[in-house]
Structures are given as C-alpha cells and as structure tokens.
C-alpha cells in the first residue's frame, strides 16, 4: 500500500474517532448549561415553612442535599474531599465519601460522618464539624452560609484559629 494512502487513511480514522468524542463532550456541556439556568428560576419562586428543629423543610433547604466537593491545599492534605449531605429524619448530616488527589483521581472513603447541620433556613445555618487536627478528632461548632445554590461557605474556629471552607456542588 502506498505511503500516502496509509497516511490519509490513518489521519481520517484519528480525526473521525476524536471528533466523535469532542462532539459528545460539547453536546453534554451545552445540555448542562441549559439545565443550570432553568434550575435557578425554580428556586427563586419556592416558598418557605418552619419546623420544630429550625430546619426549614422546603426546596431551598433541600438545595444543601447532595454531593459537595471541597478543595484543600495545606501541609496536611492537598486535594479534594467529596461529601454527601443527606437528610436523615429531622437532621441533616454530611458523610465523607471520596478522597481525590491533586489530579482528580479518587479513592472511596469509609462514609464517616463529618458534619451535623443543627439549624438551617435555606440560607444560613449552624452545625458541628468533625475536624482532624494533629491526629485527634474534635467536634467544632461551625457556621454555614449559602453563596448560591451550588456553593456555600463553612466557617469554624478552634484553638483560636479561624478557618473557612468553600463547598462546591459536585
């Protein structure tokens, strides 16, 4: 077979296969952008109701339910941790489900309870955060504040140190 035929056929194969991959990624990202915009409109119109434990059970509080990613860059840990926030009865708990290294490659975690949200009104809340510090576990009070439906800030103090984590929806 002529070299030019070999080159032409090989290039055609590579372009065809890689093109399909890029087409699917492009289509998927376009669909995702469309659904994010329509989600924001629904949340803005949802009414609020109050319960005994100050956890408002409506679509706004349900926005904190789901999987969240927090990126860390410290001497103790560089990478991300994935948490799953679930409503269990009248309490909202967060569990560690995955550890990711700096390149995004994950390892399943053992679903340790890491955060208990004791009060939350859809925008602000308070809870107890289980922090590891120098190989000891501490239950530390924390404040939660929604930035938008895909981001919230978690702030806590221990031993005079203040720390703020940004939780992003996965």
């Amino acid at each position, binding site marked *: 077979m002529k070299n030019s035929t070999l080159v032409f056929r090989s290039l055609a194969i590579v372009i065809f296969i890689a093109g399909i991959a890029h087409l699917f*990624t492009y289509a998927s990202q376009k669909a995702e952008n469309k659904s994010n915009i329509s989600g924001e409109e629904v949340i803005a119109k949802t009414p609020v109701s109050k319960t005994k434990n100050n956890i408002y059970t409506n679509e706004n509080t349900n926005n904190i339910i789901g999987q969240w990613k927090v990126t860390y860059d410290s001497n103790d840990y560089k990478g991300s941790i994935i948490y799953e926030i679930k409503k269990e009865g009248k309490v909202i708990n967060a569990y560690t489900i995955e550890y990711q290294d700096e*390149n995004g490659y994950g390892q399943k975690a053992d679903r340790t309870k890491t955060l208990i949200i004791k009060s939350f009104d859809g925008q602000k809340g308070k809870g107890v955060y289980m922090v590891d510090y120098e190989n000891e576990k501490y239950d530390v009070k924390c404040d939660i504040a929604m930035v938008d439906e895909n981001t919230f800030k978690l702030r806590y103090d221990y031993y005079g140190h203040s720390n703020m984590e940004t939780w992003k929806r996965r």
Partner: protein
Amino acid sequence: MIEFLSKKLQWVDVDYWFYLFNDLSLVYIIIPFFALELIRYAYQKRLNKNLVLDSIANVITFGAFFVIEIILGILAITKLYFWIYNNFSLPHLELNWATIITCVLLADFAYYWEHRMMHRIGIGWATHTVHHSSPHFNMSVAYRFGPFDAILPIVFSLPMVMLGFDPILVLLSEVFVQVFQTLLHTEIIGKLTKPVEFIFNTPSHHRVHHGANRQYWDKNYAGILIIWDRMLGTFEPEKEKVVYGISEPLNSINPIKVFFHGIVRFLRKQKQIKGLKNKLLAFIKPPDWMPKAQVKTKRE
C-alpha cells in the same frame, strides 16, 4: 443512547471497571486458562522441561520489563503526559462513555502503528523480537517482553493526550489493549465465527502474527480490532500451519539471554555496519536492512 453515552461518569467507578479487567483478569481468566493449556500439552505429550522453563523465562522477562516501566513512569512519563495535557492539548474531554469508548479505539489504533513500527524499524525489532522468539505459543508468551517495549508506545500515545484525552484514561486504555491480547496467545481456540474473525483480533489472527512462515511475516499487527490490518494492507488469514518463532531461532530458556538477545543482535549488526551515518540509519531502517555498498561487497 446519546444521553447514556454523554452522561458524566465518576473517576472512582471508571478506575474500578478498568481494575476489574486490567488487573483481576489475571486471576479469573489468564491463570486458569494457562493451567488448561498445560493440561492440553500434557494430554498431547508435548509438556516437557523446555516448555516449562520457557514459560518461567517469559514471566521473568515480564518482571524485568515491569520494573523498567515503573521507573520510567515515576521519573518522567506521567509528568510528561500531564505537561502536554495541560499545555498542548485540545479542550479536555469529559469523562463519559463516549470518551472511554473512543479512547480505547484510539489506543487500539495507536497500538497498531506502534506494533508495526516495532516490526519495521531496527531499534523497535531489537526489543520486540524478544516477544516473538519463543518457539511455543501459550498465555505465558503474552508476558514475554523486551527491555524497551515500554518506550515506543509513548510516541504514539502522546498524540492522544494532545487530542484532549485524560492521560490516566489513555494509560488505562493502553493496558486494556494489552490485556485483551493476552487472551489471544493460545492454540486451544481455533477459528471463531466469521463476523468475529472479520472485526476482532482473534487467536487465529494472532497465531499468524507469531508465525515464522514467510507469508506470515509482519502481518496482523492488531491489538483488539483486526479491521486496522484490513484497512492498512497488513492482513493475512491463517491457512498454513503456523511455525512459531523467529527466522534465526534463539534456542535458549535463559531469561537473561532471552531478555537481551535482541539488543545483543542489534549491537552485533552495528559492529558490522561501516560509517556513522549507516550505523544511525540502522536504528530506523527495517531489521533486515544493510547498507547497499556492504550488500554488494558481500555478493562479490
């Protein structure tokens, strides 16, 4: 279908699926199948000391190859791949089924070309001849590797990273292509149904590839899909009974001799070749190439 193919996947799941096939297949397919092959050899009264020691030598060469691969990987390869990915690639592809399937297809196509180069250039054959040098054909031969077998693939997989595929996905796909071929190194399975034989690489096609029969030389380079050979003019069906090995038999079961014999032969050839330019050309010319002047002199 499109929704399924473009649904975002999680790395932890993808990693697990590749682990099930790439790593665990040794336990649930390869070792049991090799045991079956040994039973077949014994039944046919072909199980002898040479065959057993050849199989042990194969596994030892794999160990040596693996160490070289790990060292290369830690030192340079992963860093190089990620540097290219972060600086010289098309938009990064999302992790979904379409990306995984196309990555495996491209890894298979890259393997075709890398394998073709290993047969058709001097330095490629110097390492790849190790794999073909066994006079036997069984699953242990799949693990018979040469010292530089991990290097040429880099040249062919870097373009995949440049096309936007995640480096780890590219590496996992390449291992998948290699592990698939482990299953082809057998005489137990004859020809499969026509549609399978038309599309996929099969034990029959791979026996041809390992043949020392003249018409079988440099044929059927495929990894998973034989269609690459059909499209690029290197396909040959299995007709005549295959004689395994290389044109100049090695006749050794010493794992060190086996592992290095390709390089030793290449260096011996380098000594025979006159002139620096010709010595360098020998690296990239076909394995049987000699400078014209020296061939003429030999004839005279």
